């Protein structure tokens, strides 16, 4: 049975192909269109999924769509009614797209994909829940989903048992932890639905003591948080129900001034506000999890929705709740719901048994050495071919050890927002100067943002104060843990200002070449660890194809590109006219 799961029209459009219960291909549309968080119909992602498995659309048995568009439309109309006439401007801008496209999903599938079979519609949070429960390693698990908003739900909890999955309780719009975080993101001058992770990074610089951070008290005035983690926002502080801006005048007054303009410098006050919203979010999510454990008494928990990408909060789940095991899928935002919708249809609706656990996040497009060589030749690019993998690894490890910044393009592209060793920029974590080179010359991004360390799973506890055994979501860079104090000074490039690190644990069975590279680097440097950051510049999606990787290297200070069996040095090739810095944006 072949099922196509699709999510689109809000942000992060994506497609997933399920064959007899196994995910064979999955990708976000942004990687093909090169528009970050592209919400448009995932035509390219669908085409990739079909091509990857040698299928045509006529081979697909059913499509599962990740939400119920009419329920969402009902919520939007209710908001407009409630806020009449203030909501006029938003109504005028939003309604045409709803009438022409968003409400006519079945027609869209017929028109754009020529698909004539059944289309199933699942609720947004059910797709989130299915996207994390079914690919998890657990037979049974408590489920929590937390995001901005789906149709009406902003957070939900329930239980999954084998093929059954039920969400039993919810928090409804407009009360939303995700939207509270986004409102603060907007207030701090960053883009909503895009830069929330910057606020998380910035929070490490702020005052993390709730008793002395004045903004924590201010934010707590906006939210009535019950001991069971349920909450209600005071909507006087927010405008997002009827306007495109998120914080209200009252919100700005309470936080002591207007929103930060994107060009303004980030001050200690902004850092404290970021720390405050991080504290409130952790308090809410961890209270929800404790309540969920009391309700289910299950040792396993799975977490999904955009808020599940908050790796600082995730790192505290096992130490601050009674759950013993946690799993989060690498793409826990809306993109990952395409996978959830397909899996829910297969297991819960069609009653098929579970036979898949997501261990490898490498579900996107891949390019063979022959394809890469053909590209290099066609562009008259100077390159070095390595027929031996160990030579390629030795050479790459030497380059990184000598301070070079390496673009690493190997195998199939990652599923989700994090670079996990397929489309990564790698560097030496012990080099104190590398952070500035990466931030300013390669990624063109804010200097306060940290870099992630990639470490072989067996070594994680040597360098990090992590849960033991280290939870599986660390493979997807979804857990932040303190770097062991004795290593902090020796690992300046990956130790954040508060001593934490968002590590990626690497298993040999998931990506042997990447694992072996870390080991090769360890043999030379004494520290088997690499800086791993996504292969892109600020504002661009991660590179997907060889031409994009080459272009990114030539326009930045990436020194060389290790692409399949080839190493390409920037200095050996003519500099491209492309200037990455001028293109860097949020």
């Amino acid at each position: 049975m072949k099922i196509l799961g699709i999510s689109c029209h809000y942000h992060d459009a994506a497609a997933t192909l399920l064959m007899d219960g196994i995910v064979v291909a999955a990708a976000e549309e942004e990687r093909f269109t090169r528009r970050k968080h592209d919400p448009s119909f995932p035509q390219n992602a669908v085409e990739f999924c079909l091509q990857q498995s040698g299928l045509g659309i006529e081979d697909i048995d059913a499509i599962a769509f990740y939400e119920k568009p009419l329920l969402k439309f009902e919520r939007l109309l209710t908001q407009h009614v409630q806020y009449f006439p203030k909501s006029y401007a938003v109504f005028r801008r939003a309604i045409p797209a709803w009438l022409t496209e968003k409400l006519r999903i079945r027609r869209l599938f017929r028109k754009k994909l020529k698909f004539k079979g059944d289309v199933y519609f699942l609720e947004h949070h059910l797709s989130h829940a299915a996207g994390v429960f079914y690919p998890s390693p657990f037979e049974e698990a408590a489920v929590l989903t937390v995001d901005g908003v789906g149709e009406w739900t902003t957070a939900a909890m329930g239980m999954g048992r084998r093929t059954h999955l039920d969400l039993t309780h919810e928090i409804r719009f407009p009360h939303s932890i995700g939207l509270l975080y986004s409102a603060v993101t907007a207030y701090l001058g960053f883009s909503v639905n895009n830069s929330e992770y910057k606020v998380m990074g910035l929070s490490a610089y702020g005052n993390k003591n709730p008793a002395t951070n004045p903004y924590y008290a201010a934010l707590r005035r906006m939210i009535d948080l019950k001991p069971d983690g349920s909450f209600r926002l005071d909507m006087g502080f927010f405008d997002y129900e009827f306007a495109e801006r998120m914080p209200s005048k009252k919100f700005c007054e309470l936080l002591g001034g207007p929103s930060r303009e994107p060009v303004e410098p980030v001050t200690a006050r902004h850092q404290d506000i970021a720390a405050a919203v991080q504290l409130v979010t952790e308090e809410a999510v961890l209270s929800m999890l404790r309540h969920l454990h009391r309700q289910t008494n299950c040792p396993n928990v799975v977490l999904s929705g955009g808020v599940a990408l908050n790796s600082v909060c995730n790192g505290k789940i096992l130490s601050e709740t009674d759950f013993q095991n946690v799993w989060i899928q690498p793409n826990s935002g809306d993109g990952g719901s395409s996978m959830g919708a397909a899996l829910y249809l297969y297991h819960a609706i069609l009653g098929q048994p579970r036979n898949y656990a997501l261990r490898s996040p490498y579900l996107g497009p891949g390019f063979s050495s022959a394809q890469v060589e053909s590209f290099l030749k066609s562009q008259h690019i100077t390159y070095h071919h390595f027929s031996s993998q160990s030579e390629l690894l030795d050479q790459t490890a030497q380059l990184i050890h000598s301070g070079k910044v390496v673009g690493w393009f190997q195998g199939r592209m990652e599923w989700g927002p994090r670079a996990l060793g397929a489309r990564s920029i790698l560097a030496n974590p012990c080099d104190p100067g590398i952070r500035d080179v990466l931030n300013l010359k390669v990624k063109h991004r804010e200097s306060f943002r940290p870099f992630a360390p990639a470490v072989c799973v067996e070594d994680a506890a040597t360098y990090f104060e992590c849960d033991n055994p280290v939870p599986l979501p660390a493979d997807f860079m979804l857990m932040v843990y303190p770097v062991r104090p004795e290593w902090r000074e020796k690992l300046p490039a990956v130790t954040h200002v508060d001593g934490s690190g968002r590590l990626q644990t690497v298993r040999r069975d998931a990506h042997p070449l990447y694992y072996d590279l870390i080991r090769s680097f360890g043999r030379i440097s004494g520290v088997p660890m690499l800086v791993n950051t996504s292969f892109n510049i600020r504002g661009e999606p991660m590179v997907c194809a060889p031409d994009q990787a080459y272009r990114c290297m030539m326009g930045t200070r990436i020194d060389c590109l290790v692409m399949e069996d080839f190493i390409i040095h920037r200095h050996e090739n003519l500099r491209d006219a492309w200037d990455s810095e001028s293109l860097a944006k949020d």
Partner: protein
Amino acid sequence: MRLPKPVLRLLSFLDRVFRILLKPLQVVSNFVFVTISYFLGVGLSAIFYRRAAKKNPQSTVDSYWQEMQTTPKDQDAWLRPF
């Protein structure tokens, strides 16, 4: 029957011209249609909504969790976009 190439070219040119000319007209008609729907549809509903909201004031509760039902009774519900 296939039309000769010059005729096809002319038709495609006319099609493009009409599209360009119709675009501003479409924008204006959309604006008028959406504005009328807003003030009539949304505006009238708002009057009833506000009356109903006054009759149902929010009460203080111990928990804001609300019960939800994600498994529908009939299988056809999965095929509906609502």
